[in-house]
């Protein structure tokens, strides 16, 4: 076979491969894209077939024209679609602390870090060590052999210790046991809708870097994330809620309370003392009386 024939066959195979790829791409693409790119493909194909017969000048001009069209189409596409592809934020404010994040309930702890950085946070207990917790059989977290209460107790405390101005301990702060039911009743009775920062799941995913004990916290997260993701009980995702957000932003001291699922609630110390705590005492006194009856 002559070199010329070989070249023709080689070219033919390459054309077929490329055009097949192009055909698949056009077939999957949407209407307008299909039309524009289809037309351009035909033009480029004709140009490619006759390219060697054209004068150098025409050839160069045509290639530059194709590239210029591509640049313009690129720019057109980017202006129209880039913002849809990737949520863009203007950096006129620091991007992490943009209001948009809080509104869209993304990066909840980004706002939280900003909120607490110059405040004293009051929590119930200081951090305890892993060996202070017993191993447990927990049906809810199938297969997760990590000592769950260690993480529930300590993750937020470590976080506050790292990112707030100061952490104080007050054993009078309600423990997480029984708090979930009370919180529901409190919200109903006080008609208060706390500001919802969204899921704090990711925050806890990464709070383990603050762990100085060398406990493999990512493993715990991985198990819980996995089971939460594939569990139908989506409510078990961790949440961050703030009572009276604006007052909290201006306050010097905040109380932090979380339930057994790690749903965190923040409020000002005044709000805690004057509104939250009396309701809590009242609720549990009523509960105790019912139990006694």
């Amino acid at each position, binding site marked *: 076979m002559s070199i010329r024939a070989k070249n023709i066959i080689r070219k033919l195979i390459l054309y077929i491969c490329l055009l097949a790829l192009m055909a698949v791409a056009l077939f999957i693409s949407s209407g307008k894209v299909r039309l524009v790119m289809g037309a351009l*493909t035909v033009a480029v194909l004709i140009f490619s077939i006759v390219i060697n017969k054209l004068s150098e000048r025409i050839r160069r001009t045509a290639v530059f024209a194709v590239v210029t069209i591509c*640049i313009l189409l690129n720019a057109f596409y980017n202006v129209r*679609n880039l913002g849809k592809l990737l949520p863009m934020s203007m950096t006129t404010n*620091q*991007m992490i602390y943009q209001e948009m994040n809080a509104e869209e309930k993304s990066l909840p702890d980004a706002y939280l870090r900003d909120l607490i950085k110059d405040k004293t946070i009051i929590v119930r207990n200081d951090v305890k060590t892993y060996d202070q917790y017993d191993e447990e059989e927990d049906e809810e977290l199938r297969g997760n052999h990590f000592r769950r209460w260690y993480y529930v107790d300590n993750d937020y405390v470590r976080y506050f210790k790292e990112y707030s101005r100061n952490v104080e301990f007050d054993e009078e702060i309600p423990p997480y046991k029984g708090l979930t039911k009370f919180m529901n009743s409190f919200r109903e009775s006080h008609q208060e809708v706390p500001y919802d920062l969204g899921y704090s799941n990711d925050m806890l995913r990464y709070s383990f870097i603050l762990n100085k004990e060398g406990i493999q916290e*990512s493993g715990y997260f991985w198990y819980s994330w996995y089971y939460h993701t594939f569990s139908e009980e989506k409510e078990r995702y961790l949440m961050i809620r703030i009572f009276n957000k604006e007052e909290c932003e201006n306050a010097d001291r905040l109380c932090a309370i979380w339930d057994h699922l790690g749903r965190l609630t923040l409020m000002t110390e005044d709000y805690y003392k004057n509104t939250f705590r009396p309701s809590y005492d009242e609720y549990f006194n009523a509960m105790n009386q019912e139990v006694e009856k």
Partner: protein
Amino acid sequence: MTDSFSYFLRQTAVVIGLWTTGFAFIYLLGAALAPKDDRKERSLYDRILRALLAYPAGMALWSLVGFLLLVSGVKYCLLSVVVAYTILFAGVLFYVITTGKLGNIRISQLSDNKITLRELIFGISVVLLVVIVAVISCIGVISVSVSNDSYYYYSLYPQTIAIEGRYLTSFDVFLTDVGQATAIVGCLPWFFGFEETFGIQLSLVFNLVGLFALAIWDMTERIIPESEDKPVKSKRMITTTILSTLFLATATPFMVMARWILANAYFMTFLFITFMLAVRAGNEAVDEGSCRRETLTYSFLFIAMLSMTRMEGGMMAGLLILCICSLAISNRDILLYYTLPIAITQVLYYSTIYIKLSVNPLYSFLDFTNVAVMLGFVFAIALYVSLIRGKHVITIQKHYSILLLGGLLLGNIVLCLIRPELYLTNLKYFGLNIILQNGWGYFGFFVLFALIILVGAERKSKEISFAALYTIGFILFSIAMCWARDGSLHAGIGDSGNRVLMQIAPFVVYSLTYELVTFLYRH
């Protein structure tokens, strides 16, 4: 929130500071590595290259110094960084003085140190441009995108490093999944009090565009033949450089990588710089008989940085070395300036996290098997270069590019046979992500257009160029890497496999430009 203006100012100052330290380092290094009483006049290209390499060099210095402090167990804080910088600069200066190369440090190109008006204008323009780029990047006129990984991997984790000043076992999957050099760049805001890195990243991307333009300029200068009418050649070079650079700068995958605050923009930049310097070193080896030590030493710095910018950095740098073997660079230089830095960073890092810290996360990208494969890969490259390359099997050297691509293709076929479902799913989503424009825009179509044109074009040389070799190799290697990670690719812009592939944009544009320019002007 109220601190935004002060944050912008600080970030701008840091960008300028990185450029200044990088420039000083490159300048001193250039003097130290040049022959004694070097009287050779630097070309404009050389001077622009130095100015453009300064910022990435400053960043690489910052990251590598931080990395060495962290793995050596010395407290990582501003003081230790300053001490390390002082030792480094003093060391280079001492070398310059003791070797009698002080005369090489010249402000002017002229031997009597008189600054001409042209030089003055050049110097002022460079400084002004640096300030303008820094201000535009940091002042908040360009929107950027942040995701969970931007925040946790490249903000919260670096903040914790800055607070602790050392690696801890509890950093856990951050040590196995995050590119440490990028995380150390992320420490800058926490040392200098401005909390964000978008300006630092955007400045680097502007820098990359400049370097890309320079690389295209250099390429066209070599390809386009001298004509009797000199301005005609210059006009052609300018047109090609502008069009090619504009095509890259507007390419959707490039835009996505540039504006998404993640490690990809850093990785893409340092990979391109190392690639570009390799092209230059190869040309020097052909033109001058050997590579300049200056070019090789810059490569040493940038490939070390590259290997730590993302977790798979060592592997990708390894592939680049395999492609560099197709150039005329000597075995000694490849071993010393390309393979050694990767070996140093990888061995130091893996021994720190797996031996010193005994990190063993339940879920991570980097496990023992992957580490063994990465180190084995670097070791195999070293063995190939020192024992086989250019010595025994002549056929290998003659058909090296074809053999390398064939080997990669064969490797992919083997992977496909081992787990066909995973491989084919990855391949399917790789294609779908491009066609469905998940971060790719019309880029896939345009590449096909260029290839259709090139098929029709009758080219004299059938050899695979270095750029094409690395581009095709990168695609095959990335698909193989995606196979090796846990879980398959999926349709979506954010998939890490898709992001790795999007980093290829500068290489695709460069190699297509190379092929088209070769056809148009060497026909």
